[in-house]
Structure formats: structure tokens, C-alpha cells
């Protein structure tokens, strides 16, 4: 770096630049939160859906699956699983219920979580709600 570029100038870029972009980010955050209802399908959040989200979290589902592309990459994407399973919450519930306790020899298998009917219904409704979020047409196809 040339001598004409002094430490004082570098310091001012640091303070000025970070402050400016930090404030801009706060502004964008406020704007995003205001605009979210247009895309976030929050109208569909019922008590059952909120309960289902809690079941999703309490069983660490994101430790294997992705949800809207975020999570672990060990098991299928679930943001669109409701659509992939033919828009059937029953199919989702049946799949979760039928997981073998001791797994499948040599292959990946979802654990048996022994969820109650109420918990299964909540989880399925939560995944149905997630599939209604406007994600700019992501994922590219039904396979997730």
C-alpha cells in the first residue's frame, strides 16, 4: 500500500463503512419483516402447526433433513414433502410411523420416534404449512 493511503483513512473506512452498512441492514430487516406476510404463508399458522414446529424441533429433525434447503444433507428435503407425497398428510404420518426400530441393514433409516397421533398430526400440518411458503420456486423440481 502506498504511503498516501494512511492508517487514518483506513480507520475511517472501517468505522464509516461498517456503521453505514450496519444501519442499512437494520433498515432492510425492518422492511423484510413488514413484507413477510406476503410470502411466509403465516396466515396458515394454526395452533396445530405451531405445535408441530415444536415437535420438529424437539426431535432435531433438522439434524438429518433440510427444510427449505437448510439443515443436514443426510436425508431428503422436507419443505416440499407434502407436495411430493401427493398432498397427503396421512402419507407423511404413515411414513414416520412405519420406521423400523432397529433400522435397515446397511442402509440409512429414519429412527422410530414413537410419536403420538396428536404429535404426528402436528408435524404433518407443520410440513403442509411449510410447503405453502413462497420460496421463489425453489426447489427446482419435486425431488427437492
Amino acid at each position, binding site marked *: 500500500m502506498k504511503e498516501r493511503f494512511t492508517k487514518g483513512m483506513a480507520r475511517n473506512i472501517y468505522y464509516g463503512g*461498517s456503521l453505514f452498512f450496519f444501519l442499512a441492514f437494520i433498515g432492510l430487516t425492518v422492511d423484510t419483516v413488514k413484507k413477510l406476510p406476503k410470502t411466509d404463508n403465516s396466515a396458515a399458522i394454526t395452533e396445530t402447526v405451531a405445535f408441530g414446529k415444536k415437535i420438529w424441533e424437539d426431535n432435531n429433525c433438522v439434524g438429518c433433513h433440510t427444510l427449505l434447503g437448510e439443515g*443436514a444433507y443426510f436425508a431428503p428435503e422436507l419443505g416440499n414433502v407434502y407436495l411430493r407425497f401427493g398432498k397427503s398428510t396421512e402419507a407423511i404420518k404413515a411414513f414416520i410411523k412405519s420406521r423400523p426400530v432397529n433400522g435397515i441393514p446397511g442402509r440409512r433409516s429414519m429412527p422410530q420416534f414413537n410419536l403420538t397421533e396428536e404429535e404426528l398430526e402436528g408435524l404433518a400440518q407443520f410440513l403442509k404449512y411449510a410447503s405453502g411458503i413462497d420460496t421463489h420456486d425453489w426447489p427446482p423440481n*419435486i425431488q427437492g
Partner: protein
Amino acid sequence: MELKYKSQSVAKLYFMAAIGLFVGQILFGVILGLQYVIGDFLFPAIPFNVARMVHTNLLIVWLLFGFMGASYYLVPEESQRELYSVKLAKILFWIFLVAGAAIVASYLLIPYARLAEITGNDILPTMGREFLEQPTIGKIGIVIVVLGFLFNIGMTILSGRKTVINMILLTGLVGLAVFFLFSFYVPDNLVLDKFFWWFVVHLWVEGVWELILASLLAFVLIKVTGVDRELIEKWLYIIVAMALISGIIGTGHHFFYIGTPGYWLWLGSIFSALEPIPFFMLTLFAFNVVNKRRRDHPNKAATLWALGTAVMSFLGAGVWGFLHTLAPINYYTHGTQITAAHGHMAFYGAYVMVVLTIISYAMPIIRGRKANPMRAQVVEMWSFWLMTVGMVFITLFLTGAGILQVYLQRLTDTPLPFMVVQDKLAVFYWMREVAGIVFLIGLIVYLVSFFVKGEEIE
């Protein structure tokens, strides 16, 4: 050679804990890699999600130990005074170690849903989100430890000499504490939840942690090269300036496909495309300063780690980040092995390596010598190359897996189901596992280097 300030030696505890937990992290990494190809390995005793929590949470905890140890070593020397309270540093160390160990042990011993139940996750639900899986009470413990640590470091800096290095480090550490508080906000609205989850994750690793990284690296470079502080501080300012200018709004590259407004596709793409710049400058800076060195410090290993950090963070965070950061590309790569490839090299290159850099520089001095015997340094440099080359290949194989996955699952005219595609990626996962074993061997060599004896260096 003696320590300038006696209280710096408290860093040793933190460094030892960091290295111990690092070993645990890598062992679980090897288990995870095997589960990718032998699906029922350790099932149902240790399901994939549990092993993954252990792997990622150990990483976070040991890096925090590393940052704290680094601060306890660096801050007295920069501030030109003893640490405010060595006793507090020791008490917090034991609290953090016991809490960290308890959290990880609970993942392995108790089914996660049961853990949520007995730790009162119904009262203040914060569990079950990626990287933030700790029980709420564990998160509160982390906050208490970090606040105590900040108080200790802050009191030392504020009543001592304020340098650019310790002020930027302090800013980074305060940011770390502040943004962690978003981990307590878990709304029912999934989009809102995801949006603010990134305030912890992105604003940590692509924000304030870069301040910590740059200041630690600048400190070690001053020490090993003897280059004028004025020049180093100028570089430091401009690097962290670019990190924040690009990285704050760069958060937007996570807001493409999670239900957020469309303008983030543009903002996230443009600003995150700038994120490699500070990492590139870090590389220029490190090589420039080492070339201008005014002394030949006998600790060659520390210099190697410092240069390695600069290069590998640029490759991992900069190049591998840029590869999939533009919205139209990320549309196909989002949530695939491409992300995993980037995550591995970025964390290793930036944060693992910078902690190993400062340990490499500081540990010999804490142990009463300017540098380790040459024989020990040679072993340490072998570990550098084994771990680094291991990580390069882990990243390349995961990238190969990712490209094939994107093609088969998302790009062809006849997209295949996820699990079918996974079977076809097995050869890449096997090679990744071999590279992981090389990394583990490198880590063992690293541990050995601490015990190699030889002629003392004057």
C-alpha cells in the same frame, strides 16, 4: 524466554481444552463420514443427527475455548498490563468445560426429545435448530461465561494500552456475545425463525468472527516478523472494513429461497460476491508482511500456520463461498453437498487454523521457551500438511459429490429421488472418508508434536 505478563499463562488451560475437544470433533467427523456410506453404522445407538450435533457443537465450543485462550494471551501483552482477574478466568474455564462436556454428553446419553423435556424446553423453547441445539439452560450458561469473559477482557483493555489489535478483537468478541442472543428468539413463523437464525450463524462466521480472526493473525504476524505496527494496523483496518462492508448485507445470500422478499436475490448476490475480497487481502497482507520481516523468528511452525490460515481461509471461505453464492447458481446448489464442501474448508481454513496459529506461537512461550525444538517443529509442520491436504481432499470429494448430486437430482430432464442419488455418490463419500482419516492422522501427529524433545532453541 519468559512471559511478559504472568497472567498470560492462563491461556494454557484454554488451549489444552480446545485441543482435547478438537480430537472429539474429528472422531465424530469420521463416524459421520462412515454413516454416509454404511447407513446403519452405530444405528440406533448413535443416529446421524446425534453424531452431527456432537461434531458441530464440539467445533463451536473448542473454537470458543481457542478464542478465549487467545484473548487471555494477547490482551495483557497488547494492553501492557496483567489480566484484570486470573481467578475469574480460571473459574469461567471450569464452568465452561463442565457445561460444554455436559451438553455433549447429554446428546449421546439421552434421546433428544427427552433432553428437551427434562431441561424445560417447553418453558423457553430454543432447541432443535441447526448448530443451536444446546438445551436452553446450556445457552444461558454460555451467555454467562461469555459475559464474564468479556468483563475480564474489557476491564484489562480499558485500563491499559488500547491498540488497534485489541480494540478490533474486543469489537469482535462483543459482537459474538450480542448476536448469540438471537438464539433465544424462536417464533412459530418458520420464515421469521430462519431469518433471525442467520443473525447468529452468518453474522458470527461471516461477520464478527472475521474481526477476531484478523486481529489474532495481525498479532502473531507482528510478533514473528517484527514488521512496523503502523503498517500492520493499516492492513488490519482495511481488511475488517471490507469484511463488514461485504459481509453484513452479504447475509442476504441466505435469504434467497426461504420465503423472504425478492430484493435479497440481488442484494445477497452482489454483496456476498464481494466477501472474498477481505480474505484475498488477508492473504496479500500475510505474505507481504512475512516478506518484509525484520527478524527471523525461530518459531517456523507458527509462521507456517499463519500463512496457511491466510491461504486456506481465502480458498475455503472466499473461493468455495463464491462458487455457489450467486442466486441463479445457488438455486441449484442450495442445501447440497456443495454447501458441505464449502463449510468444511471455510471453518478449517479460517477459524481452526487461526486458533492453531496462536497456539503454535503462544504455547512454547507459555512453556518457557521462545520456540519449540526444531525436531518438534518439524513434526508440527508435518501435521500442518497432513491436516491441510486432508481437508483439501475432503472438500474436493464433497464438491465432486455435490456437482453430481445437483445434476442428477435437479438439472437433468429426469430428476432422481434424493436417496437414489445418494447411492450413486457413494464412491465420492468413500474417498472423502479416506481423506478424513488422513486428517485424523494429521491431528494425531499434531498431538505428538507437543511431546517431541530436542535441542533447545536460543
